[in-house]
């Protein structure tokens, strides 16, 4: 501790250099934060997928419907806890740019199966009483300024015309990765108003008692309906979500390669800067050694200096990235979530430590091995 002033003096020695080194760490870890937010945004569907939920869709194509009569057959299966269904509505609010998912759901069962969505009891009862009621996620409600009781007109791309809904409830999530942008309304209202496609639903979600049963139950469901006019394709919710993420592109690979380039360069730069700064000060280190500083103390001091840079610059970078993500999705609503998870923060600080340490090792070794006579003899 008593050598803190020495550390401080070294850091203040070349202000520009200190600033630049901090800046390098800052940008690298700012980027780290942004990349992890992008990654979680794309993986959102996978992260929230329940291991005990199976999605049952039409085998020919997910855009084709399934008959409502299947619901009872699912309940007959062993290991099935609950069943619900949903249909894609495919509309928009005022302008196609206002992008959030609307779904007609079986209001009696949907929120039991998706128990992670929290709705106030009174609001939910109001929703159940109103034929044209709807439930909207907190994020969408905030974005468009929807308040309980508002009439929300949705332009129906598929069914035509403008459909009016009354906002009865706003749901919140239990985890930061829960999608709070969706819009739900009664399937019975869709059924009543749409001119065709009656008696059909978009897809079923089957909740099972134990995740281990997922494979056998999926197989069983698909075999029951094989060779019927509406064959099914069942998958765990996770596999279903993962399929979509994979289709967007190999985001993991892009992020990993950018990250690798950035961090390797960072290591090169900071280690080189430390090296140069140490070389420049070799006469000073020689003097310190002459007056009795041990080799290992100087080794330790050099490493601490490097750790100081990485810690100050890096944590500021992560902090700014965190603040940036708190402001919300930069694409204006195309990403369902945009946040840096706790795990990623911890990983970031771990990396800060590792990189501070690695950048310091070579220069510190040079200091450790420095021979007084040579160093003082150098021009």
């Amino acid at each position: 501790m008593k050598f803190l002033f020495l550390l401080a003096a070294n850091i203040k020695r070349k202000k520009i250099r200190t600033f630049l080194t901090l800046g390098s760490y800052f940008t690298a870890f700012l980027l780290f934060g942004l990349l992890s937010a992008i990654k979680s945004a794309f993986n959102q569907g996978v992260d929230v997928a329940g291991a005990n939920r199976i999605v049952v869709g039409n085998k020919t194509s997910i855009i084709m419907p399934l008959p409502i009569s299947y619901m009872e057959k699912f309940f007959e299966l062993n290991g099935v806890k609950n069943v619900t269904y949903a249909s894609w509505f495919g509309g928009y609010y005022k302008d196609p740019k206002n992008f959030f998912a609307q779904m007609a759901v079986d209001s009696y069962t949907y929120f039991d199966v998706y128990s992670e969505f929290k709705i106030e009891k009174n609001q939910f009862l109001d929703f159940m009483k109103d034929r044209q009621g709807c439930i909207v996620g907190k994020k969408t409600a905030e974005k468009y300024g929807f308040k309980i009781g508002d009439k929300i007109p949705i332009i129906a791309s598929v069914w035509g015309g403008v459909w009016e809904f009354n906002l009865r409830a706003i749901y919140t999530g239990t985890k930061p990765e829960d999608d709070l942008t969706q819009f739900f309304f009664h399937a019975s209202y869709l059924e009543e108003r749409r001119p065709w496609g009656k008696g059909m639903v978009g897809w079923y979600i089957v909740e099972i008692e134990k995740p281990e049963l997922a494979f056998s139950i999926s197989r069983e469901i698909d075999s029951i309906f094989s060779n019927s006019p509406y064959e099914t394709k069942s998958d765990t919710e996770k596999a279903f979500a993962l399929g979509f993420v994979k289709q967007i592109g190999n985001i993991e690979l892009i992020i990993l390669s950018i990250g690798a380039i950035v961090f390797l360069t960072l290591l090169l730069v900071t280690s080189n800067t430390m090296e140069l700064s140490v070389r420049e000060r070799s006469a000073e280190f020689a003097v310190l050694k002459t007056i009795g500083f041990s080799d290992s103390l100087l080794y330790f001091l050099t490493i601490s200096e490097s750790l100081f840079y990485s810690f100050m610059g890096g944590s500021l970078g992560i902090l700014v990235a965190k603040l940036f993500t708190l402001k919300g999705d930069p694409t204006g609503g195309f990403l369902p979530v945009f946040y840096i998870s706790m795990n990623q923060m911890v990983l970031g600080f771990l990396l800060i430590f590792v990189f501070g340490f690695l950048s310091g090792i070579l220069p510190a070794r040079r200091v450790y091995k420095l021979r007084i006579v040579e160093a003082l003899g150098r021009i």
Partner: protein
Amino acid sequence: MPVPVTYSLNSIKARKTSSTTAILCIAGVVCVFVAVMAMANGFSKMLKSTGLENNLIILRKGSSAEMMSVISKEQFKAVGDINLVKRDKSGNPFISGEIVVVAPFFHKATKTNALAQVRGVQTAALGVHRQVKIVKGRFFREGMYEFVVGKNAANMYEGLEINKEVKLGGRTFKVVGIMESDGSLYESEVWCDLRLLQETYKRPLNIVSTIFLTLKTKSDFSEFKKAVEKDPRLNLDVKTEKEFFEEQSRVITTLIRILGFLVAMVMAIGAVFAAFNTIYSSLAARTKELATLRAIGFSPLSIIGALLFESLIISFCGGFLGCLLSLPLDEFSASTLNFQSFSQVAFTFEISFSLLLQGMLFAFIIGISAGSLPAIRSTKLKPSDALREV
């Protein structure tokens, strides 16, 4: 007297680690910059070639995507009767009613079932989508369970090769042709007979999703639009193909632009820091050397010139290396999700000469901005002070 060029070259050689670091930094940023731009350029080129001059697309009012639109046979006829539509010698209009659905096929790269856009058309479609050409095999015959597959779709999915049979909705289709269309969206699609697709997807036969048509001249657009709006039977939206496909790509281009730009910008700032840091440190360590140069009579200006020349060489090497590293990406074919229909679209990275020049320019900007300040500063010190510095 100017400082000899060999001085700059030798000093780069003498400080191998610093020079390499600076070169690698710049190379990394230039490579990412070129790659992001090549991706955005490739995607927008793919959509541009999908929209043709004087071609229009018509959807039901309020529909934001082809898959969501519904147009009746009567409406289709009424549109075709409008006088402004181009006609062939026997008086038939260049108009094509199509339905668009998605179907799962096995995607080779991700080893999962991915959705491909399937378009049901009639032979008339070839007259309207003039960029579509059959490069292998033939077009499907009406009434036959046959597929014509876009070049990219054939590459992306397993089993969509010529003469192979594919199951869809309990029916077996045979792939009879491969089509190309200047890299447009259609190259990621599968085409088949309109009526059979309607049957397979249990759609009513008197309904299509979209109408494509060709106008006599481009300038007829607003007049045509008025004619459609005037007709009370036609509750339809008219757009030029160019306008429509640009709208369709909004999600993807916004994602690439905003996220790609964000990442590239932060990287560029980081690179300026890094290059600045390296060049600055290497100059700072050379205070004595530069003071010696001053002492033996070189003017400050010529020393600045030599130092700038040094950073130029470094940024040239970095930029060149970065461009070189990005070159294998040219023509690299990537595919992503079309957020309007959740189907796969393929496009190729486009690295043009001017993009490479931009990359080099980017490198020079980083190099000069990182090199100039330390260069000027290094000459401000009095040689006598600098030489005495410990």
